[in-house]
């Protein structure tokens, strides 16, 4: 069977779902960040798929932007991880209740 657009869309959906699942269930802040990367990556896959379908470079440019934003986001997130670990001596996200009213 020839690989159609749907195959790729389903793959991206599965990867996204696994990422969402990890973000909801894991408590380790590092793994939560990694699951976020997983979700971004599945969206990039969709961009490339539809760029191929409609034969334009726009999707590729979007992926480029998204990768840049992801890199910036990971850098800021890991800086937060470092400062949180200094304060709380733990990576558990359940301990982060500073903003609770």
């Amino acid at each position, binding site marked *: 069977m020839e690989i*159609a657009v749907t195959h790729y869309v389903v793959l991206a959906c599965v990867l996204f779902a696994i990422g969402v699942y990890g973000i909801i269930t894991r408590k380790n802040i590092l793994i939560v960040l990694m699951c976020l990367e997983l979700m971004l990556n599945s969206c990039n896959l969709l961009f490339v798929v539809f760029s191929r379908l409609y034969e334009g470079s726009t999707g590729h440019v979007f992926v480029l932007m998204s990768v840049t934003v992801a890199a910036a986001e990971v850098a800021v997130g890991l800086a937060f991880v470092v400062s949180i670990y200094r304060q709380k001596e733990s990576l558990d996200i359940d301990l982060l209740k500073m903003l609770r009213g």
Partner: protein
Amino acid sequence: MSHTVLFYIFSTLAVLGAVMVVSHKNPVSSAISLVLTLFSTAVLFVLLHAHFIAAIQILIYAGAIMVLFLFTVMFLNIRDSELRFDSMNIPKRMTFLFLFTVVVGFFASKFFSSSPVVFPKLEDPENFGTVAEVGRSLFSDYLLAFELTSVLVVIAMVGVLVIAKGKES
């Protein structure tokens, strides 16, 4: 035909790596599994004629971002027990993941039963997705966005320094 085989091999590897990211106790193992997923996705990008994006994926995602993750783990100098506190009963979680996949697969099979959207033949397969082609688009139509990205990266860099430096000193 080779497209089909490669797609199935590398999509399986990608899903496997993603499941391992979610299910591993140790963040270092999760990071290594994430590299597997990102690399498999890069191969899928090549299958979709996005050669430049595939190279970027391996260089930035699987290279730089993963090194940043591992570097942070090393830098924090965490005890092993503190790294693995997120203990979980994997069978239970695996069951959830399995159910999730089955539900998605059910909707997928509904999709497949209708007529599938196949990729059209490329008009210009030599140039599609190359550095020149993406660069032309990036530096003409999306020039402003590209320049703003540099501002974003500078802001992120300054923010990281301020956040990670802390109050003392």
